[in-house]
Every structure is written in C-alpha cells, then in structure tokens.
C-alpha cells in the first residue's frame, strides 16, 4: 500500500473519521480492526470530505503563513539528509526507470524554484476559491505535476493527487512532507496511486473534487474531460527544441547536454532536436567532447536494451550520412539534412538549418511546441517573432530549459485562475 490519504487511512494524520460505510459493507458492524485500510473507491471520498472540511481554515491563514510553509517544504526536499528525500531516492528510481542521480537532479530543479519570493510573486490568488482540487499525474517526469499542486495549496485549496499506478512513491512522500514540514497548514494534501484500469477509484476522484488538473496524452485528457463533471485543466504531451548558433560557448553546449540528458530525454522540455545555424558537424564534435562528464553526472540506468538499440540505429544512419559519436549512455548525432527523425533517449540530435528553415520548423511544430532553448549569439529575431505569435511562453538559455519558473503558465492554463469558484 503506497498512499497517504488523511482522514481515510489509519496511517495518516489525526483525527481519522471512521469510514463507516465501508466498514458496514465489509464487516456488517462497526467492529473493524483499527488498522484496516479501505479500498480506494471508499477511501478517496472519505479523504476528500476530510480535506474539504479543512479548506476554510486553510484559506483563512495569512497568505504569508502558507508561503513560508511551502518554502519550508521545498527546502526539505533539497536537504540531502531529509529522510523523505532519502526515501524518494531509494524508491523512485526503480519505479521511474531513471538513475538516482537523475531523480536527485530533478528534485533539486523542481524545488529550487519554489522559494518564498517566487511564491509571493506568483500572481493574485483567487478571491473565492473552490474547496478541493484534484491532480492526475502521468509519466516518469515525477515533478511535472507539482506546480498546480503548489498553486492550489498556495491559494488555500487542499489537493488530492492521483499518481500513476506504477509510480506511487513520490506523490505519497510529497504528501507526507507537507504533514511533516508544514503542520500549520493542517491536513491539506492526499495522494494515492492507481492504474487507469481502476475505473471505480478514478470515478471516486472525479466525483470528489471541484477542479481537476490532468497530465497525460491528449487522448487521456479528453477521456477524463468527458467523464468529469468539473472543469478540467489539461497538460498534454509536448516537445521542445533548441536553436544553436555555431558560436555557442562550451557552457551553453554543456547546458544543452544537461537539457537533453535530464529525465533521460523523455521530458516535454527535452529539446528533441537542436537546429544548428552553421556547421552542425563541428557543433557535434564539441558536444561529443563535453558529453562524457555530463552523462556521468546524469547517468543512465545501465543496460537499457531498448534505448541502446534505438540509439545504435540512429547512430548508424547519422554515422553513414553525417556525424555520430557516442559513449556510455549518451549519443550525439548530426544529420545531413533537416529531417525530423525519431530521437532515442539520451541523444542530442543536431539538424542543420538556416533561420528561415528554423522558423518554418517551429511554425509547423507550433501546436505541440512547449519550449525552446537557445545557445549562441545568432540574431533570432525572426524566430522569436514566430514564437510570440504562437504564444510560446518558455524560451530559455540552454541549460535552463528544464527549470521553468514556478509561475510558468503553459498549455493555456492559468493555474491559479482555475481555482476561482
């Protein structure tokens, strides 16, 4: 059992209302053993009711109290000796198929932006917020779903997280960390993991919350939107790219490698392709020289046969037609032409381009483009013009693409605004 559901589970914080209906169904009386854990379809509504009850008190808190509490939680996650972080680094890598170093890097990047200043500056909170928000997380970029949860708590709205069935640890531990490090907020966060196949549990969540933030592919978001009777804010799968001038510095190219190897190249802020303005082969050779140390700091899980096979294939094609280099857990390829090829994990794929070609590529990717990393001194005015027209909100220097600001509103979602009643 990997969940943290205040009000519903014996392991969660006091007081614990008895789940009378479930007990009656299971035992026929009220003599259930104290340690019994109810199934999710019962526990989620119980927890939701409990969190709802807490909302008025949480919302009445001075906003500065909520800011200080959340900043304290963030600091705990960056504290290398914090037991919950340590437990996360023990449990999450196996669940996520990522190395402990990659998870540690992801935690640091997610929580380093969660400062008291950033929380204070994060837009006006809703005046009359709803009572409970729901959050559906997806994928192994475990921290991707954090900002709406933080936004909800910042606004004084308790939250309930559904984590993927095979990735339960981080959501549960994060909920525990709120209880441990921000007791002044009271019970304000529940978390549980279940498979999408558990329709009863999902229905219990959907019928218990006032707003729903959903991460996942567009089909999953649409499916939940049709089932939910509450407003749904969706964050679909996206991709990012980089635009690299051939005069990019070594620091910038190191940043590009970090952006590319983080989350093993599976994040929506991973630059899938890097458009090179100039000599892509030369940039590839420089990246190849820098890659071993970056890969060592963000190592892969050894023995990824599927990733290795995919990398070998792209390395082969690029090696026959362009430039290819690889080492332990990394690859750099420079393709001979601007073809949007499938890029395997932990691979920097350079595509030669000029500004009009980059602009056209970005134009074509517009509907699914999440962010753009830049490196070098090339005048990107025409590209930026297209990005502005697309409403793209994240253009970052290489190395910072994977660390968006806390108040980054993307996918057309105003995270705090959604919570207004």
């Amino acid at each position, binding site marked *: 059992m990997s969940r943290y559901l205040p009000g519903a589970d014996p392991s969660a914080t006091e007081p614990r209302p008895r789940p009378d209906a479930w007990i009656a169904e299971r035992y026929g009386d009220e003599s259930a053993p104290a340690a019994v854990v109810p199934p999710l379809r019962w526990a989620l509504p119980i927890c939701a009711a409990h969190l709802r009850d807490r909302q008025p008190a949480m919302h009445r808190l001075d906003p500065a109290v909520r800011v200080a509490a959340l900043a304290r939680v963030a600091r705990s996650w960056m504290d290398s000796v914090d037991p919950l972080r340590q437990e996360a680094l023990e449990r999450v890598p196996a*669940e*996520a*198929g990522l190395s402990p170093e990659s998870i540690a890097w992801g935690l640091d990047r997610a929580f380093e932006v969660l400062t008291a200043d950033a929380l204070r500056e994060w837009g006006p909170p809703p005046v009359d917020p709803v009572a409970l928000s729901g959050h559906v997380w*997806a*994928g*192994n*970029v475990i921290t*991707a779903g954090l900002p709406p949860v933080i936004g909800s708590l910042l606004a004084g709205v308790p939250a309930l997280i559904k984590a993927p069935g*095979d*990735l339960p640890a981080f959501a549960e531990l994060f909920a525990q960390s709120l209880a441990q490090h921000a007791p002044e907020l009271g019970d304000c966060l529940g978390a549980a993991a279940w498979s999408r196949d558990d329709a009863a549990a999902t229905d219990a969540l959907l019928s218990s919350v006032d707003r729903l933030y959903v*991460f996942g*592919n*567009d089909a999953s978001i649409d499916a939940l939107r049709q089932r939910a009777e509450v407003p749904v804010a969706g*964050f679909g*799968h*996206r*991709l*990012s790219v980089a635009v690299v001038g051939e005069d990019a510095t070594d620091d910038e190219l190191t940043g590009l490698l970090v952006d590319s190897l983080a*989350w*093993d*190249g*599976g*994040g*929506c802020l*991973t630059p*899938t392709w890097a458009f090179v303005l100039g000599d892509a082969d030369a940039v590839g050779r420089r990246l190849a020289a820098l890659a071993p140390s970056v890969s060592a700091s963000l190592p892969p*899980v*050894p*023995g*990824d*046969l*599927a*990733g*290795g*096979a995919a*990398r*070998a*294939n*792209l*390395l*082969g*094609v690029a*090696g*026959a*037609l362009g*430039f*290819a*280099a*690889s*080492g332990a*857990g990394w690859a750099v390829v420079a393709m001979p032409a601007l*073809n*949007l*090829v*499938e890029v395997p*994990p932990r691979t920097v794929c350079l595509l030669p381009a000029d500004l009009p070609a980059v602009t056209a590529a970005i134009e074509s*990717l*517009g*509907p*699914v483009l999440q962010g753009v990393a830049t490196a070098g001194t090339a005048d990107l005015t025409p590209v930026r013009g297209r990005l502005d027209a697309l409403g793209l909100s994240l253009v970052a220097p290489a190395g910072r693409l994977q660390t968006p600001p806390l108040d980054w509103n993307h996918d057309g979602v105003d995270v705090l605004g959604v919570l207004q009643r």
Partner: protein
Amino acid sequence: MGRRGRRAGGFVSVEASDRLHEDVQAAIVGSDVLTPWPDAQFDELAGRLVAHQASCAPLRRFWAGRGLDADAVPGWRSIPPVPTDVWKHVDLFAFDSSQAVSTLLTSGTTVGTRGRHLLRRTDTYDVSLQPPLDAFLLPGGEPLPILVLGAPLAADPVSSLGHMLQWAVDLRGGPGSEHLWDGGPDLARAEARLRGADGPVVLLATARALAALLDGLDGPIALPPGSRVMETGGFKGGPEQERAAFHARVAPALGLPAAAVVAEYGMTELGSQGWGPGWAMAHDPALRERWGVLGDDPDRFVFPPWCRVAAVDPDTLVPLPDGQRGLLAFWDLANIDSCLAVQTADVGVVTPHGVLLEGRAPGARPRGCSLAVDEILQATR
C-alpha cells in the same frame, strides 16, 4: 528519410571482389562447419572485406566515425557493426548497382521502409547456406521430400528466406518436394501432404505459417519417423509467443519428437544463418557431448564458423565478453560486397555452445511527457 546513395566511383575492381568471393568460398568449403576457425584466419578475411567494403562511402564514413581505419583492422571485434535500420535508409554495397544480380528486401513490417541487400554474386550466399543446413537439418544426407509452406522464389524474388528455401528444394529435395503455395500458404494441401506421407518428410515454414497450419488441422498428424520441421521468423508484429511453447505445440501436433522441430535464425542483411542444434545432437553423440551442456533450449542457435556473433553493451555499443547479455551483432564473412558487420535489436547471450536468443529488445521504458515523432506528425498534420 529518403534513401541516400553512395558517391559515384571509388569502388575496388570487380576482380578484387571476385578474389574475395573465391577465397571466402574456398575457406568455407575447406572447413568443417562445426569447428571454429582460428582467429587469424577469420581476422585476415575480415580485414580484407573491410578494405573492400570501405569503398562504399557511407560505410567508410560510419567506420571512420567509430574510429576504424579500414586499411588496418586489428581484429573482427574492432569492426563497428552497422545497425539493421541503416539498411533501410542507406545503400550499403561496394559495387555499382547496375552489376547487382539479386536484390533482397527486408520485411519492413514495422517502419514501412524496406531495407535492401544487393548481391553482385549469389554463389557465395549459396555456398554459405549449404553446410549448416545440411548439418543441422539434413544430417543424414538422404534426399527426403521437402515441403515448403511458403512462396517459391519466382513468386517472391526479393525474399532472402525464399531464396534459401528454393535452394533447399532444388538441391536437397527428394521426389515429391514442392512449395505448398496458392497465393498464400496452401494449408489444405499441406495437411493432405503431411497426412499422406508414407516416409519421412521435411517441412520448412515460417512460425506464422506453421501456427496457421496447426490452427486449421483436423486433429493431430503422425508423421513418419525421421520427419522434421524447420521453423523460422518468429512472430514479428503478431501476438507474443515463446518459441519453446510453440515448439511444444508443434511436436505433438505433428507426431514428432521435440528435437525434430528445428529453429532457424536468419535475416536479409546476413548471408549466413544460425540453426538450432537439437536435431543434429539427437543424431550425433559427439555433438550432444559438445553442445549438450545447454540442454535442448529451442532459443539456442549455432552459427557457422565464418559468422561470428557478439553481444554488445546497450550503453556503450562495445562488444561484451561471452556470457554477458546484450544486443546481438554479427560479423559474417559471407557478406562479401555489402557489409560484414551487422548490429541487430535482438537480445541474447553468446556462449561457446551457441547463442541464446531472448528476442527483440524489450519495449520502451516508462514514458515521460514528451511526444514521439509519429504523435508529433499526427498532431501537426
């Protein structure tokens, strides 16, 4: 990505290619298919092949990028294998395409693009396939009726498997040999031929065709003793099915002992094939003594001595020592005018007693929130 040709010119002479064909054929014919070649013999021919094949510009570029000097190959393990996907995008042959006498195409069932393997001569291909086929499938040498549950070469001239099966019928088949084909596997005729067999027969089929045959059988068949079945191809793109479980279904359905179901491993990109040694071991105590240490695992394949195999580390793509699990790569001296070193996405372990095949690399690891290219194209269409 479109197919990219090699730059014009730069090929070694036809005479030099012919010399390689003749030398490799002589080495094959002059050796025992069950006895490993000395490293020096293998490396000498491999080095000559690399020097020849490096006249193909993409291949030269690939090898140079991986640090190989085509004129000074220190040993076969130092020759970087070319992934099978590359064959789908790049022409890999060291001769002018107008000299090709045969074009073999990969199945291309998964990505929609078919790789092609052009042959300037087919005789080395034939010389290479013969000894292992004889040793592992037809060790007795008697000309048995060979029944092929597949298309004759004339109906599918681009199939490397079709080429091999046609060769078997033409040069090893006894009276009554035939392709059981009628625009597709002729299952009814196959069942009739098998039920009516009054002496041992050899059935050659892909696993998928064989499964279709079994699905449609009107009860078990008792094939005469000495009969055997060659199964190849796995279940690409179809439902997952363990080879061991499949063989365990085939044998009783056809009234055969387990050893009579012989697996074959081949691909368009390779001139040589691997064979399950079970039938050979059952008929030669010396071979059972030699290979029996691994039992009768139907996923074990033995390759001829002119085709070496290594598992490569998926993280570094460097060949691993025998006994370690990785992605299988082949160094096949029967590939004279194309590329001798081929990297696959098959997972396995190489041992002194054969290659233990686990199947294709497992599916992708847990996904993040990024889009795959096909999703991108769909979303932006």
